[in-house]
């Protein structure tokens, strides 16, 4: 009898252990950089994906319990990136991060991230439906490291009422995006019209052309407008085109000289800047697709009747009208437990489902990452999303995933700042940028 009791107890214990073994608990932490309340779906999409993956596992007879912990309360990109990299060094990195695609090169070399292509089928839905050029932006060195989380684009904006007052008809204004795209309306025209607006007193001095107030991808667009190329496609090296750089700096110097842009513009408070451009204090400015939502919060409820948008106009014959897209990407961080990397990669793939990504795109005024999103009602029904996709995304390029691009971008902006504020002439500034780039970038730079 005693033996039997023992056997039953043993069998029971085994059954319980077996039951426990088949139930798998996975903790996934998601850190999203540069995200505010509007970007909540960067994390919530992973939560929804976890639910779907649990259900898929349940159908296969496996019990999978995924806990998703999200965090996006970082004071800025600096804090986020320091947290991620130091966490990776200490082995306490989150499982999934949402960050700039520019981080891929350095984080992959350092071994902080693992390639999603090792865990998911890139040829299967929904990843097979992601725009190929966006997919490429999340790859580096021949490896698909991540998956684009959102897309955006950086348009040029016009205040309609100001244009009307300097003599444009409604039809002229409506035709502007086309003229910009074809190269008929250039940055020289912008300067001319901005000066007109200032001279006629439609806008105050310094408010004719009202650019971004800090460094960012936006300024590379003006370099491209004057024929500059960021990376040489054949060699994979960064390119300093001195003529394009000089003309790009000269444009801003001319704008200051003409009184349409303030000499001390860089460093203006962002809140003040948003409020001013949203309410027509500036004639021309540039920004990002997410501005659409921001202007509403600044009190402009009537975007379509007050503002026109286009590509960044070309600067000269060598250049082109262009816009830069700077997608954020989902990346999987290196984990001690490979199973977490696998689940994290699967969650990212599921979160890319057109319907889920559309929730983020529409809530945060970003653009779609997958072709099928154009067919999702929520996306198609949103005028801004569909028009911005149509006008901008086709001509969009991204900044290169190059280890030294940070040094390149930094030097380019410092030179612009020096020329803009009158510390140096454009020629002097470009000469210094060249010395700086040759020293810091070295063999990875081509100077033209």
């Amino acid at each position, binding site marked *: 009898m005693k033996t039997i009791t023992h056997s039953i107890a043993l069998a029971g214990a085994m059954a319980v252990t077996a039951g426990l073994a088949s139930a798998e608990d996975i903790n996934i932490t998601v850190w999203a950089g540069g995200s505010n309340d509007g970007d909540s779906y960067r994390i919530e999409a992973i939560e929804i994906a976890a639910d779907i993956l649990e259900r898929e596992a349940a159908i296969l007879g496996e019990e999978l319990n995924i806990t998703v912990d999200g965090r996006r309360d970082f004071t800025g990109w600096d804090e986020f990136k320091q947290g991620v990299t130091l966490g990776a*060094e200490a082995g306490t990195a989150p499982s999934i991060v949402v960050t700039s695609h*520019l981080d891929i090169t*350095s984080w992959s070399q350092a*071994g902080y991230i693992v390639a999603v292509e090792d865990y998911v*089928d890139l040829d299967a839905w929904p990843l097979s439906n992601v725009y190929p050029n966006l997919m490429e932006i999340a790859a580096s*060195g021949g490896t698909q490291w991540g998956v684009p989380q959102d897309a955006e684009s950086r348009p040029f904006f016009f205040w309609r009422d100001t244009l009307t007052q300097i003599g444009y008809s409604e039809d002229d204004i409506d035709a502007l995006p086309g003229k910009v795209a074809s190269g008929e309306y250039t940055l020289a025209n912008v300067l001319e019209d901005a000066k007109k607006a200032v001279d006629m007193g439609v806008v105050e001095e310094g408010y004719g052309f009202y650019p971004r107030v800090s460094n*960012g991808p936006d300024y590379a667009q003006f370099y491209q407008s004057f024929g500059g190329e960021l990376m040489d496609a054949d060699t994979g090296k960064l390119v300093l085109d001195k003529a394009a750089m000089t003309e790009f700096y000269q444009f801003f110097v001319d704008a200051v000289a003409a009184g349409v842009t303030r000499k*001390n513009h860089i460093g*203006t408070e962002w809140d003040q800047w948003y409020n001013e451009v949203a309410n027509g204090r500036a004639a021309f400015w540039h920004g990002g697709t997410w501005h659409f939502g921001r202007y509403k919060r600044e009190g402009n409820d009537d975007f379509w009747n007050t503002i026109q948008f286009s590509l960044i106009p070309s600067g000269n014959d060598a250049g082109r009208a262009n816009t830069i897209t700077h997608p954020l990407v989902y990346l999987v961080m290196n984990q001690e437990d490979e199973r977490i990397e696998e689940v994290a990669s699967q969650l990212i793939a599921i979160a890319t489902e057109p319907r889920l990504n559309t929730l983020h795109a529409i809530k945060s005024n970003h653009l779609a990452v997958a072709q099928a999103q154009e067919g999702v009602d929520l996306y198609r029904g949103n005028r801004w999303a569909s028009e911005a996709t149509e006008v901008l995304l086709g001509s969009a390029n991204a900044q290169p995933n190059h280890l030294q691009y940070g040094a390149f971008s930094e030097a380019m902006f410092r030179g612009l700042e020096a020329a803009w*504020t009158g510390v140096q002439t454009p020629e002097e500034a470009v000469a210094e940028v060249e010395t700086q780039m040759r020293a810091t970038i070295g063999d990875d730079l081509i100077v033209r």
Partner: protein
Amino acid sequence: MTSRALGIGFLAPALIAVFIFFLLPVLLTVVFAFTNMSTSTGIMGGDYRINTDQLRGLPEAGISAPSVEKLESAGFQITEAGLTALADQFSEDAADELRDDHMDATFGSRRELERLLKDLDDPIRRTRDRKAAADLFAVTIVGERYSTEDEFRVALSATGIDSADHDALTREAFTGWGWTTDNFKLLLELPSTLRFALNTAFYVVCTLAFNILFGLFLAISTFYLPGKLANTFRAIWFLPRILPPVLYVLMWNWFTWDTGFISTVTGWFGVPPQNWMMQTTGHAWTVVVLINGFVGASLGMILFSSAIKAIPTSMLYASEVDGANRWQQVRHIILPQMRWPILFMTSYQTLSLLTSFEYILLATDGGPGRGTEVWALAAFHTALNNYGGNLQYGLGAAYALVLVFIGIALSALYLRLFNFKDLLAKPRIEQ
């Protein structure tokens, strides 16, 4: 238990604190400054890998053309060894089908091979299995990561690449950091170095002068005020020091922005609103010096005030009996006796101003046009703040190391100037 051992025991906590909070950071700065450490190299070590981006640069690194071509063209190949493993681990049918239809076929990437495995009559259905199965046919090392040099060299040998290229390839493949003196060469080469040095000198001299003179002015002027009033004034002037820097600078921002206080007030007189902080480099320097000056002056005020109180009042009374006015008192009695406190404040403030950048970071962030970028701020920007994400820890540390040396040199100079031994001499009165 000797008293010596007891003494060391009592000192131990202080020694440990000095080691952790002073010596260790300095040591680490020295170590980091002689490395090429950055975000991409990581801090803890490195692995070995060659990716397709690196392939393009290999000829320049002295790798022979046949080796590069071999690396480029190798990918995935259906071989008998792979098929045996496939039959063993996954599916015999799949292996047979591959042997019949695709023997010796090569694939540029794993993805291409995965597609084939998915399209077989007897496909490998699970993604995870398909990837593992495809890896059985890998003949490439491109894109693979090896955690030790030995593993990498073994893999390299297996590819049949000329062994003459192995050393150079291993060097190229290492992802971690290495020792170098390039950071200092770069500092000498960069045109910005001189500008940052001059900025720093200008900033330290101006702020120091403001600190000391204004601190003295406050101390002397409050000295002649009745006690309660004097304390009130001192408390007010102490505010900048006890306010959190972010709040303090935010108030300055609000004060100087083109929608701020000054612009509003000057606006009443028809002056167009402008950014009084960032208008020109001159504006920016003025604000930076004032922001730091008020913080430093409050400390000077406290120190100088107590020094003045230590002056025997009999001397002041005597001077008044002799008919000296206030200025003569200050000039001939107070200032001469303030020599040591003034020297102390000067040296202390020089050293702290050299390395301080937080108020500048919060106020102008070195702008406009790097006009107020001081050395310490440049170190911060290089090591911890970069738009592209690849932070240059090594170069940033090299910037910082220069400051450490200047700091040590100045300390030595000041100790000599002070005649430190005399200051520490036993008081004669007790002998």
